[in-house]
């Protein structure tokens, strides 16, 4: 009897969760489907769901018109570079905050977060002028630096919350064994914090990948990532839903696939210290 009740509940839960899940996912699914339609089918009334003549034409048009691989590569370099650089700088900072907390540690942490509240548009002009002076316009280096600085507070914050969960006794034991600061971080702390570092890495990679203000305003051709690629497909003349969908799919597919494969790592670490 009790089994039957739980069984029924499971069925209801499953139905409910799948409905909600599909509903949330639907816009993405629809975009992917539309990318395989012709422009005319894309706006057909009533809309066609699956029973249309699948075509790859949109993809070939997009590939012919833009150098997709270059945009993709720039995105990878910029998002990857800024994330890795950010982690290299943030690990020592987060370590010292977590294990040698001072009176001001919390203030410093919160101050770091507050730097993220500077409105980007407000400082576009100053940053643009600095970039011109330093010759960083349209360079991947420039964007790596800017995006690293943008995400640094989040990286420090996330790492800090993971490090705090590591019991101090282990470090002391390591110290007794004669481990120096470097060994302590490299051989004791880092391995324990791998899941945390992995999810920090993933989250910030996603944030950097999707950043669309600086990447668009500080690049022209050489360093332009996928956000700029998309900007050449939004609202051109004439019917464009199918081509827009193809370009959109191409812009989000890499990160979507990466996210799905690594979602366990991402989820396991994505707590921001919310769970004790």
């Amino acid at each position: 009897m009790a089994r039957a009740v739980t069984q029924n509940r499971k069925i209801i839960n499953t139905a409910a969760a799948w409905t909600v899940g599909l509903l949330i996912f639907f816009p993405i699914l629809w975009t992917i489907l539309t990318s395989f339609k012709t422009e005319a089918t894309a706006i057909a009334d009533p809309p066609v769901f699956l029973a249309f003549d699948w075509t790859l034409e949109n993809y070939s048009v997009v590939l012919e018109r833009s150098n997709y691989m270059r945009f993709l590569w720039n995105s990878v370099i910029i998002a990857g570079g800024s994330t890795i650089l950010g982690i290299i700088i943030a690990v020592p900072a987060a370590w010292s905050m977590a294990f040698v907390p001072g009176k001001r540690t919390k203030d410093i942490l919160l101050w770091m977060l507050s730097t993220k509240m500077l409105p980007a548009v407000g400082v576009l002009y100053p940053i643009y002028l600095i970039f011109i002076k330093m010759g960083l316009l349209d360079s991947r280096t420039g964007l790596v630096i800017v995006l690293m600085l943008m995400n640094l507070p989040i990286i420090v914050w996330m790492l800090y919350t993971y490090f705090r969960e590591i019991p101090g006794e282990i470090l002391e034991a390591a110290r007794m064994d004669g481990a120096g600061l470097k060994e302590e971080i490299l051989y004791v702390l880092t391995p324990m914090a791998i899941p945390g570092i992995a999810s920090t890495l993933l989250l910030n990679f996603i944030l950097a990948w999707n950043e669309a203000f600086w990447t668009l305003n500080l690049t022209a051709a050489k360093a332009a990532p996928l956000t700029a690629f998309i900007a050449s497909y939004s609202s051109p003349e004439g019917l464009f839903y199918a081509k827009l969908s193809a370009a959109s799919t191409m812009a989000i597919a890499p990160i979507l696939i990466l996210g799905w494969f690594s979602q366990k790592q991402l989820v396991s670490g994505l707590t921001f210290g919310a769970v004790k």
Partner: protein
Amino acid sequence: MSLRNSICAATALAMATATSAFAETTITIATVNNGDMIRMQGLADEFTASHPDIKLEWVTLEENVLRQRVTQDIAAKGGQFDVMTIGTYEVPIWGAQDWLVSLNDLPAAWDADDILPAIRDGLTVEGELYAAPFYGESSMVMYRKDLMEKAGLEMPEAPTWDQIKDAAAAMTDKDNEVYGICLRGKAGWGENMALLTAMGNSFGARTFDESWTAQYDSEEWATTVNFYVDLLNGYGPPGASTNGFNENLSLFQQGKCGMWIDATVAASFVTNPKDSTVADQVGFALAPDNGLGKRGNWLWAWSLAIPAGSDATEEAKEFITWATSKEYTALVASKEGWANVPPGTRSSLYQNTEYAKVPFAAMTLNSINAADPTDPAVEPVPYTGVQFVAIPEWAGIGTQVGQEISAALAGQQSVEEALEKAQALTTDEMEAAGY
């Protein structure tokens, strides 16, 4: 130094010289993602084939993003682009600041005298041509012959606004999703305000009087905007307040508009059977007037210009010469047909007997000739520009005024409120700019 080493060094030196002789110069071209420019990008292989030492980098962006990027870059002197696609609004302002390279020295074969005078004047500042027109446009009425016939009406060659309103009423059939009139409603100085400012001219309105006082509180503007709002709310498509050029184009191509008053370049899209379901039913007429001596049509030219900071001026000139030449026109005609050549820049195109067969050729030329950027309004004005005011502040003013009118069109405020706010914000912006 051993013999071997010196041979190596000599070879290296020779190779270095050889490479520098074939050194490629890269020019970065910022352009808008309109059909004609995308076609140019596709045909650019022809250019690089004859200019192996020039490499082209394309930055193709949606219009709003493009404008923001190039303005930012030229104002801050970022020097990221060698060729910029800009319009008749930017050229006089930037040219006067000496931010653009003069194109007076383009080769004689390019034939500057062939450029339509109205277009050329718009791109010239104190005798210096600062941009080469890629395509030019005015605005006109595009209408559905079959729907007009069904309604028992005939479209005059030069209609009045009242005739447009009557025709819109007669053609509207909301149950079948046919809307008598499609007009721009999306806010933006290059969207609804282009239409409204040009329309205002035909209603006797003007944006500023001779002493640069904003005129949105005038009787004429109230009449213009009320007419526009009534027309669109009565016979326009749903969501008109968010429709820009592209949205209206796709509505018209789907057969959902009876009439559409917009850029003359749209003619080649709506008559193209590949994209348009109504390709064989489109008629053309001049933009409407009110009998006051000015018609509601604008003048615009997407043009190629070289920012003064470019380090590849000569190469950029070569490219511009190619892209805006008669040969380029011929190239497009041979590959894609005469209907697809970039229109509205050269007299020779309109003398071409092949091009004369294109259904919208004559009406485009007449529309362009009917616009006068130096004397746009019924009353005298201190500015140039038909559908814009050629001052740096206009982009900001136009867009904000456009947002107020857009909100009035969506029914979120009355026309009076919108114009009151428009007047206040324009006065404020002008004050901030030091008028």
